[in-house]
């Protein structure tokens, strides 16, 4: 090969590379920016791993692309969606029968029927399906179709909140059955019956939806809906201010900067999202009932809400928020340092030389872990430790990733979070049931209380609302006498949205972050203002 021919080859290669680069950036069609009235762009902090309900997407309802048999309204009451009515429940509470809506079509034009429902549930419960939330359907023994318009669920044990689980999205069998459930294209190119269809999911950047003109619930007025994924809070706020976004979720300190903005409104969504401290039973100090009771009284929840949450939240006295209908009135525990000290004195925890209490040679000290990088949890942990110090308890705060924290969970306290508004069972069973102690992240404190165990089972089995309410009241009262966790706050989620639409509301939100929450939980019902 001569130098000349080599040079020519090199030039050809270089030209080829450039051509590929140029080809990669041109794609046919397309328009410029559309500031249309019927389009909305919102900024969210979280990107889903998948859009396939079979892998867990949209399990709590509101998935935009899909519908469940039932759906939650703004007050978290169940209403029919793909079913025509709430299910008929047999007397032994083991059989749930759903009548299905007729004439519904998937966005590819194929009709929806009972076999799609059966497929969805059986595929999720298939052990080969990597759906980490499948435990939520643990009660299901079998799902059967009776004709095209009826689906019957048979449960293995009576499970009162089962209907709340059937908000999970139904997928088309004719599409999803043909591919690998764990890595098939359906995860990124879903087909559903929902009010929107997916236009494009540019991973790490945004998800674009288009209104489904033939939606059975009526075509949405917002024709185009884009969710931009912007992990950084400051960038999200800046792009909202620059007009790039019509709305965004923001932390309290940034939401405040939009307070006097005429064209934008701030929505504070009430939540079940609590922050609590796990007090592991195996720890000599944190496991002592007197210490637990004292901590419950020593923490100043009001101050945490005012200073850490900037007022956007509520003091938490248990997993159930004080505003909920399931809250047991009278279980509020106002800040009372004097009584906290008295309880510790009475239990034999006497102040030592450095002001930290001791009992039988054991120093009243234990570590408290929080997730590193989570500012909200860090602030809660520091406030908790400082309140405890005033009562003579020495809590050392330490930060780490879950990999660091998990092996220590049995012995050390953890600043945890959780909350699910669908039904009190969702939170409390996993949090308090003694048989679930140390099972994954369930019952992290290894809490064990016979009265609570019994009440959890009663509440789960009974179909009678009054019976259930009284059981959950019992649990909340028992938690005052024998706390395994110190509940600190329920955190409001703040959203700032352009005041261009009418019909905006927020739903009661869970701890989880997702696409479906925020004022856009019902974007299909929005109407542009004149």
């Amino acid at each position, binding site marked *: 090969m001569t130098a000349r021919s080599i040079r020519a080859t090199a030039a050809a290669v270089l030209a080829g590379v450039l051509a590929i680069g140029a080809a990669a950036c041109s794609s046919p069609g*397309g328009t410029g920016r559309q500031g249309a009235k019927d389009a909305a762009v919102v900024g969210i902090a979280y990107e889903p791993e998948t859009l396939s309900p079979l892998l867990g997407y949209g399990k709590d309802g509101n998935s935009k692309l899909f519908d469940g048999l039932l759906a939650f309204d703004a007050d978290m009451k169940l209403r029919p969606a793909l079913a025509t009515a709430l299910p008929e429940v047999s007397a032994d509470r083991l059989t749930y029968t759903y009548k299905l809506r007729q004439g519904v079509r998937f966005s590819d034009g194929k009709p929806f029927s009972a076999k799609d429902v059966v497929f969805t549930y059986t595929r999720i419960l298939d052990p080969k399906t*990597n759906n980490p939330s499948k435990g939520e359907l643990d009660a299901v023994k079998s799902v059967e179709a009776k004709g095209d318009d009826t689906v019957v669920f048979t449960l293995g044990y009576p499970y009162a909140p089962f209907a709340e689980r059937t908000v999970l999205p139904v997928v088309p069998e004719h599409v999803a059955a043909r591919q690998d459930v764990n890595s098939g294209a359906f995860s990124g190119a879903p087909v559903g019956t929902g009010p929107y269809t997916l*236009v494009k999911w540019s991973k790490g950047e945004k998800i674009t939806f288009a209104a489904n003109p033939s939606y059975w619930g009526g075509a949405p007025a917002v024709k185009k809906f884009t969710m931009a994924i912007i992990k950084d809070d400051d960038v999200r706020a800046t792009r909202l201010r620059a007009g790039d976004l019509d709305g965004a979720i923001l932390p309290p300190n940034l939401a405040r900067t939009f307070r006097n903005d005429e064209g934008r409104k701030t929505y504070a969504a009430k939540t079940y999202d609590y922050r609590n401290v796990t007090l592991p039973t195996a720890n000599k100090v944190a496991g002592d009932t007197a210490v637990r009771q004292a901590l419950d009284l020593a923490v100043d929840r009001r101050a945490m809400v005012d200073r850490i949450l900037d007022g956007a939240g509520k003091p938490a006295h248990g997993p159930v928020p004080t505003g909920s209908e399931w809250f047991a009135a009278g279980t509020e525990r106002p800040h009372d340092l004097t009584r906290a000290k008295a309880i510790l004195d009475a239990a034999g925890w006497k102040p030592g030389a450095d002001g930290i209490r001791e009992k039988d040679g054991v120093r009243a000290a234990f570590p408290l872990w929080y997730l590193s990088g989570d500012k909200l949890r860090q602030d809660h942990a520091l406030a908790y430790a400082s309140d405890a110090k005033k009562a003579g308890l020495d809590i050392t705060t330490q930060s780490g990733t879950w990999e660091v924290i998990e092996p220590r969970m049995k012995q050390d306290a953890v600043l945890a979070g959780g909350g699910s508004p669908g039904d009190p069972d969702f939170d409390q069973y996993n949090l308090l049931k003694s048989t679930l102690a140390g099972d994954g992240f369930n019952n992290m404190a290894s809490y064990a209380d016979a009265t609570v165990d019994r009440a959890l089972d009663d509440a789960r089995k009974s179909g009678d609302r009054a019976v259930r309410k009284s059981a959950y009241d019992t649990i909340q009262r028992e938690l005052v006498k024998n706390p395994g966790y110190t509940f600190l706050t329920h955190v409001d989620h703040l959203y700032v949205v352009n005041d261009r639409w009418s019909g905006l509301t927020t739903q009661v939100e869970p701890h989880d972050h997702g696409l479906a929450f925020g004022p856009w939980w019902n974007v299909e019902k929005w109407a542009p203002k004149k």
Partner: protein
Amino acid sequence: MARLAARRVLAAGPVLLAVTFGVFAVAAASPFDPVKAYAGTAGLTASRGDLDQLRANLGVDQPFVERWWNWLTSALTGDLGDSSALRQPVADVIAERVGWSVLLAATAFLLAVLLGTALGVLAARRGGRLDRCVSSAAYTLEAAPVFWLGLLAIWLFALKLGVLPAGGLTDTASDTVTFGQTLSHLVLPAAVLGLSQLPWFFLYVRQGVGDALAQDPVRGARARGLAERTVLTGHALRSGMLPMLTLIGSRVPELITGALLVETVFSWPGIAAATVQAATSVDFPLLAALTVLATAAVLLGNLLSDLLYGLADPRVGFDG
């Protein structure tokens, strides 16, 4: 030349093997739990039994040597496996993203080489005002971390002046990728990445051409009364460029790490985000494939610079 290339390709095999083996070993030793990463928040309420089932499905409890061997044998048959972090086949992940990364890196590289060379030649006659300005700017740039440059560029051009978009591949409200939009979104990331590489080329060329200007052939050319421009481009540039050709290859690894940071800062949908996600989720198949790609790019870069060197200076030859 063909022999050099063939030898390098033969050597690349063992290198790539060792690198992928190392990736599997390091990932297996890391404290991250792939099952927990896969389950995300749902893992916080999942029972031990469900998590164990997930562990078995993902096949992450096998020893890493076995996993590596399985990955390798199926990769050789063209099956790169499925990415657990992104829930799609690895081949799709790479096909979707690598083009954008190549576009960004190639534009930046071209910018750095062309601008660096031009400025270097201009500054080669040392002591001038241009030389002083550009040289001090180059030293400053060399010391500046690329992500910091990126943030600075966003602050100035996107926030203060509002002339260029702060990130992404297209406007937020748009769902189609058009040439014009991509171009305007490419400007900032490519400029930042290019600028971060520019000082190396600039300083090498300046040095090389400066030295060449002091050598006999140049003096001879000047003495024969050739125009200054001819002397500079025809004589000095040719020998002064030699060190830079080696540099082109050796900058490839820097370019790749730089691109990772730039893509993250500018939400550029390239392979960077996937790489970070693959690493923190212990997503073996994706991580291994991306590492192979990066290693291959580095090896190719080295080969390219050796070939260029051989072309530019026949004395070096291709077998040296």
